[in-house]
């Protein structure tokens, strides 16, 4: 059998392969040859074969059949065999294979070998891939070697011990005695590995840490010698003596000085010395400075030293070398919480880094910039960050947009600024913003009452430019639907008002409905907006047409909305103005995100994200009222009445809200027309079983009889509205002492001009005969000028088939009800 080809020969051959397939063929052929050679237990060429196998393994081909051969090589007496064997073991074996345990005995023998290089191989292999079991078995040997005077072995034993401790932390104690003299070594290799070992032990055990604190003076001395010593060709790197050892010592000092005043004090001088004297023209000097800064920031250093450290980082930021700038930004990010003011001083440099071409640096600069934003610098910082948002890569945009929103929310100097900022984000990075920004923004806009005209104008203009960014389009359609009247009337104060007609606005909104760019959610927003405009614009017919078209839309969501809105036009047109009224100011609850939003006047409403059912507001509607006709006088203001019946569709839920005005802010219960008790009771019993009012001062205002004629008696009971004391809440209780029921009962009221009145729906329109029950109805009277309360009431009902109608004045209100 011919000798297997040499390693170099094989490498040369494989490199001539022109295709992957050709290479694979060569490899397979050689593997076959090697396998048969292994089977023959050939000692002479085993080494050569395993070496070839290792090469093929590096190319990515399987080589597991060589694992056992590696073990045989390790067991061989020849150094060449051992060298390749151990290399093979490190490359092909790991602790998951059972095979590796067979190595243990070989390693043990080799650790005691007469040749230090064999011992070195064993230590190296154990220190690289020894499993926990192996480490346990061999820890004693390692410990022995740690105490030898042979520096070649000592340094390897030290790092091997580090590995053992990492694998089996309980064994750490075992190495403690051997560490006694480690630092008195002159050999740099041993010193370095000893410092690594000490670091490992201190990191893992607080006891060890306490024990080794006494080494601080010695470490300081060694470091000092390194700095002060003359040129040593062996260890010199660009004029600095053994930077590797210096950095490791600094790192160990960091661990020892942390939370310990004495140690920190002992190292203060040397740290200052290193920080000021290290040559910074080359990377190596900066590496040492970097480690020094990290140490200064972590230990209990005095403030002068800390300032020095931050200034070094500041200088790093101006360095031409990108790596150094990156490292500075990373370190500043770590210290920005604890030394905020010091880092603030370097703000302008950090902001400049946003313009760096390097991606890694830009990211760090962005993170750090957001950490530095505060109430004082918000305007300037935001300008820079928005500019960054414009020009940065897409991978940054989402994080940057979120950061901008958070910062704006925390530190916005004015509402207009806040809105402008959010507009800017939506127009430049609109497709990258998070979903919850849409409702948050809507809520913000709603609450900035004076900015409505400005906001809707800007949003409208933005829509004209671009309808592809969904969050922007959604917010814009919502605003146009809400404030479209301000838009067409050209009321904007903040900037030049634009001229736009109702038709143009509707064109834009309808455009959104049909555009391919619009997401289904966006379409929903724009349909609702169009619907809302039916109470703000005069082109109602056009809107009716649009809405009816979408009643047969394929999109189920749109279809449902359109059908309900259609119903609103047809059967419930009288409710439409009230339903589609302006949204009131929303109070945001403490937590972020879509949570329950509670109105200031106490009504609850569904979350803003669901614009389908806008709730009723307390502002009076601008509609003519038949009572005006009735009473004729011009001192009677407009009031609002509601229909007593409950339609089954969309308006239904609304009437639930109306019918059960819950002034304390509790959830509105369903208004069953419950049969109330016969005596005039407090509101607490009247409407429902749920206590509606917090304020038991109801007892303070006595009830009164407002009307008593022909068997119909109407009593008023009073309550003060919570939280607004100008609002008097009156509940009427109508009772009927005649023999027959009074059906189709309607109660109406009017108040003088300085008052405002709201009438809610009655519990029923049948007043049962013989005082078997009462009809109750709530009136809310706003009396800001605290004038004497007067009221005219009109009653209509049917008794025994004939209609009855009566008018009366109510003047006997108790003073407490309006004072």
């Amino acid at each position, binding site marked *: 059998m011919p000798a297997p080809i040499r*390693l*170099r020969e094989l*490498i*040369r051959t494989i*490199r001539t392969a022109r295709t992957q397939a050709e290479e694979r063929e060569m490899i397979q052929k050689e593997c076959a040859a090697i396998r048969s050679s292994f089977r023959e237990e050939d000692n002479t060429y085993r080494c*050569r074969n395993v070496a070839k196998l*290792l*090469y093929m393994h*590096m*190319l*990515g081909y399987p080589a597991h059949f060589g694992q056992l051969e590696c073990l045989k090589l390790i067991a061989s007496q*020849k*150094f*060449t065999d051992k*060298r*390749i064997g151990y*290399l093979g073991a490190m*490359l092909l074996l*790991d602790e*998951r294979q059972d095979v590796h345990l067979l190595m243990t005995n070989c390693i043990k023998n080799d650790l005691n070998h007469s*040749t230090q*290089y064999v011992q*070195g191989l064993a230590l*190296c292999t154990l*220190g*690289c*891939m020894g*499993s926990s079991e192996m480490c346990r078995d061999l820890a004693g040997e390692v410990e022995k070697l740690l105490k030898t005077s042979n520096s*070649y072995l000592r*340094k*390897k034993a030290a*790092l*091997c011990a580090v*590995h053992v401790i*990492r694998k089996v932390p309980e064994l750490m104690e075992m190495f403690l005695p051997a560490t006694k003299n480690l630092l008195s070594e002159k050999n*740099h*290799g041993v010193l*370095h*590995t000893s410092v*690594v070992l000490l670091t490992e032990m201190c990191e893992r055990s607080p006891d060890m840490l306490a024990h080794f604190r006494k080494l601080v003076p010695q470490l300081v001395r060694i470091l000092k010698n390194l700095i002060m010593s003359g040129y040593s060709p*062996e*260890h010199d*790197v660009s004029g600095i003596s053994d930077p*590797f050892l210096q*950095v490791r010592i600094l*790192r160990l000092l960091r661990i020892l000085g942390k939370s310990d005043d004495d140690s920190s004090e002992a190292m203060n001088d040397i740290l200052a010395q290193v920080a000021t004297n290290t040559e910074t023209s080359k*990377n*190596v000097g*900066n*590496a040492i400075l970097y*480690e020094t800064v990290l140490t200064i920031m972590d230990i209990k250093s005095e403030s002068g030293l800390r300032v020095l450290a931050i200034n070094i980082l500041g200088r790093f930021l101006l360095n031409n070398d*990108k*790596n*150094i*700038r*990156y*490292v500075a930004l990373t370190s500043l990010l770590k210290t920005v919480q604890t030394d905020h003011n010091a880092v603030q001083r370097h703000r302008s440099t950090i902001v400049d880094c946003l313009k760096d071409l*390097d*991606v*890694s640096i830009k990211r760090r600069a962005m993170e750090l910039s957001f950490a530095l934003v505060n109430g004082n610098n918000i305007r300037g910082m935001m300008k820079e960050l928005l500019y960054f948002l414009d020009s940065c890569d897409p991978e940054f945009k989402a994080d940057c947009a979120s950061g901008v929103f958070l910062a704006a929310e925390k530190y916005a100097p004015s509402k207009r600024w806040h809105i402008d900022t959010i507009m800017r984000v939506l127009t430049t990075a609109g497709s990258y913003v998070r979903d919850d920004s849409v409702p948050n923004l809507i809520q913000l806009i709603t609450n900035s009452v004076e900015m409505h005209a400005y906001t809707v104008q800007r949003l409208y203009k933005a829509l004209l430019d671009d309808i592809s960014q969904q969050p922007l389009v959604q917010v814009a359609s919502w605003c146009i639907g809400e404030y479209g009247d301000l838009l067409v009337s050209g009321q904007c104060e903040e900037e030049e008002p634009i001229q736009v007609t109702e038709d143009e606005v509707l064109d834009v909104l309808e455009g959104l409905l049909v555009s391919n760019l619009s997401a289904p959610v966006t379409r929903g927003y724009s349909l609702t907006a169009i619907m809302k405009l039916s109470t703000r614009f005069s082109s109602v017919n056009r809107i009716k047409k649009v809405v009816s078209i979408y009643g047969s839309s394929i999109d189920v969501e749109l279809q449902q909305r359109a059908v309900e809105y259609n119903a609103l036009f047809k059967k419930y047109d009288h409710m439409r103005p009230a339903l589609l009224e302006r949204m009131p100011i929303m109070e945001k609850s403490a937590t972020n995100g879509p949570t329950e939003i509670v109105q200031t006047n106490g009504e609850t409403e569904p979350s803003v994200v669901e614009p389908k059912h806008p709730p009723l507001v307390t502002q009076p509607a601008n509609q003519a009222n038949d009572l005006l006709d009735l009473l004729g006088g011009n001192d009677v203001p407009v009031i609002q009445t509601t229909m007593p019946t409950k339609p089954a569709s969309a308006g239904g839920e609304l009437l639930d809200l109306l019918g059960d005005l819950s002034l304390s802010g509790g959830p509105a219960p369903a208004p069953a027309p419950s049969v109330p008790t016969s005596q005039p009771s407090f509101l607490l019993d009247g409407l429902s079983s749920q206590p509606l009012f917090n304020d038991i001062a109801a007892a303070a205002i006595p009830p009164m009889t407002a009307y008593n004629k022909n068997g119909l008696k109407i009593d008023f009971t009073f309550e003060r509205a919570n939280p607004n004391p100008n609002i008097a809440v009156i509940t009427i209780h109508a009772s009927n002492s005649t023999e027959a029921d009074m059906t189709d009962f309607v109660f109406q009221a009017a108040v003088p001009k300085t008052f405002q009145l709201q009438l809610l729906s009655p519990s029923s329109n049948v007043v049962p005969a013989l005082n078997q029950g009462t009809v109750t109805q709530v009136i809310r009277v706003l009396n800001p000028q605290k004038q004497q309360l007067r009221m005219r009431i009109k009653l209509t009902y049917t008794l025994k088939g004939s209609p009855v109608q009566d008018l009366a004045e109510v003047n006997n209100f108790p003073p407490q009800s309006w004072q």
Partner: protein
Amino acid sequence: MRFLLLFSRQGKLRLQKWFTPITDREKKKVIRDMMTLVLPRQPRSCNFLQWRDLKVIYKRWYASLYFCTGLDDQDNELLTLEVLHRYVELLDKYFGNVCELDIIFNFEKAYFILDEFLMGGEVLETSKTAVGVSMEEADTLQETMEEYMSKPAY
């Protein structure tokens, strides 16, 4: 240091040293990810990246080779650049004006030198000359005047 890789611009692996135990599959994934991260980088970019929870340091060597290493949070990135530089110096001293072919044809030697310089992810010897001395002495122990001893003729 968790791992050290050396690969060419064409994506061919020349050296791989793993300092923590991981599966073969995981190794392949790391190698693939590192190549994807490093090879497209612009010439004058920052040498540092963030990948998962590791700091990745890479250094271009000649036009066609890349060193790539993954560091723990505590490790000093700037110093790691010095470590990589030192390794290249050691190779250069040993091979005399080292080039990529030297690494290819004498990969086992590259590993031996690495094992005299680093162990378990930490620097073992900081002296420039000591590593060279150890290598020479160990080489003389090789029993045969085989291909392992001679400078390769490729």
